[in-house]
């Protein structure tokens, strides 16, 4: 059907198709190839100006990301399978990071042996809380980073502060795109002979401290860790382990999304050891006295 030279009614912003006005107010979606067959040639007014902004429309400059263009909905997500608190503590010549082994599915205690602390290389350990799938994604990337180092075989080994900084950049970048990796990371290791401990959250907020606790741990465990560290600034590895176990125990009593099985990663100058799954002893004898829920 031969169409008479027609008016381009408007440009559809997301996809730059032209909506062509036909007789009787009907509009037809037309692409550039079709335009050529409408009796317009390369030098006629309409095709010369095509791909430009129609009056009143937003113009998508070529080559720009369509960030505000609604091609993909903005995502801020919700975490699905989640890990709860992660605790970290510096002691005399190393760092301990520990977390329980629960992946909660909402309020359901669904996956009861998720490993949430991992060894990165001989002087870095990482613990993670929050969305487990996001952790698995980033874990692959971190493992690839370490593999690249093995391949380079040049005697260099990633340092904890470098991983911590890199992680901050990644998390902050995702947050700015309204598509966060919904995690809380605790990075610990030995940086040039000195223990290092830092945390990065889903907003890209990063800080370093002698003791770190994410999630509910911040409310329940952190006061205990601070108190112990104040009384005993250069605690030994065993003392650090003991206070961590105490904190995990309290968290098990008080955090409704926790679990009595846990793992500890200990980093010293000799390397990183991730313990087997250990079990907390708990005493519920007072449980019957608690009322009000």
């Amino acid at each position, binding site marked *: 059907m031969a169409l008479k030279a027609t008016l381009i009614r408007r440009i559809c912003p997301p996809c730059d198709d032209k909506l062509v006005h036909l007789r009787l107010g009907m509009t037809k979606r037309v692409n550039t190839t079709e335009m050529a067959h409408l009796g317009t040639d390369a030098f006629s007014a309409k095709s010369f100006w095509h791909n430009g902004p129609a009056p009143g429309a937003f113009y998508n400059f070529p080559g720009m990301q369509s960030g505000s263009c609604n091609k993909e909905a903005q995502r801020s997500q919700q975490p699905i399978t989640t890990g709860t608190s992660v605790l970290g503590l510096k002691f005399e010549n190393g760092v301990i990071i520990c977390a329980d082994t629960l992946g909660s599915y909402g309020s359901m205690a669904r996956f009861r042996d998720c490993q949430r602390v991992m060894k990165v290389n001989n002087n870095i350990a990482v613990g993670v809380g929050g969305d487990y799938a996001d952790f698995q994604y980033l874990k692959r990337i971190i493992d690839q980073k370490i593999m690249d180092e093995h391949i*380079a075989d*040049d*005697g*260099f080994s990633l*340092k904890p*502060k*470098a*991983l*911590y*900084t*890199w992680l901050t*950049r990644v998390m902050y970048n995702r947050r700015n795109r309204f598509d966060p990796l919904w995690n809380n990371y605790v990075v610990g290791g030995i940086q040039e002979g000195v223990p290092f401990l830092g945390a990065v959250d889903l907003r890209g907020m990063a800080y370093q401290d002698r003791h770190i606790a994410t999630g509910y741990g911040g409310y329940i465990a952190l006061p205990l860790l601070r108190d112990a560290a104040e009384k005993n600034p250069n605690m030994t590895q065993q003392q650090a382990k003991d206070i961590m176990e105490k904190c995990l125990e309290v968290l098990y009593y008080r955090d409704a999304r926790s679990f009595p099985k846990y793992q500890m990663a200990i980093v010293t100058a000799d390397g990183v050891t991730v313990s087997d799954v250990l079990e907390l002893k708990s005493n519920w004898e007072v449980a019957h006295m608690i009322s009000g829920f």
Partner: protein
Amino acid sequence: MFRNQYDSDVTVWSPQGRLHQVEYAMEAVKLGSATVGLKSKTHAVILALKRASSELSAHQKKIIPIDNHIGMSIAGLTADARILSRYMRTECLNYRYSHDDALPVSRLITDVGNKMQVCTQRYDRRPYGVGLLVAGFDDNGPHIYQTCPSANYFDCKAMAIGARSQSARTYLEKNLDKFADCDLEELVKHGLRALRDTLPNEVDLSTKNVSIGVVGAGLDFTIYGEEEMSRLLTAIEGEERRGGTQAAAEAAQPPAAEPAAAEGEAMETE
């Protein structure tokens, strides 16, 4: 170098298994003025002879700082060197931003080598016509790396490239054992002596035509200023030159055998 029918394209092999374009690119490096690099256990030092294209213009800068812990000197096409230095600076800066740490020198050199190799395998590119002497310091200590237009790179204890650099290499080879334990000043003086050997007879080292860059333990990459250089040059002034016929300043009578023996080493095929 003979012209032949296999040298028009970098993607054409000669029957002898050579890429002539790459070899011609390496000739460009030999046209550039000399530059010397050497390292001790704690420091890496690069020195370069600056050329002025005329009496009116300033001497061409030969030493380019890359990052706090890396600097390099160039021989060959300065424009190509600028592009490479821009790439190296960006890589170092990106690594420092994302890891808060210095990029290990060997990794940077590998990246540069890979980038340069692309140009030796595509019909629409030409090899970079510049040789680099990269001095860096990282957790593995000081390094001197040499890169060629052929995209090869070499980890060196000491090296000299550019015009008449064979004399410098001879000096470096003779004194190689002394470098490891030198302090910074001794190391720079060795470098200056090596550089001096590349000079033609009438020319001498001066603060105008020499450039010195140093990096090491606790020392960010620094290019020496005029004062420091003139002090060092004065310190080696009295010594005999191996390559030249007369020393800059005679103190005691020079040994009689010196002129004849030295002459042979100075000559280098260009």
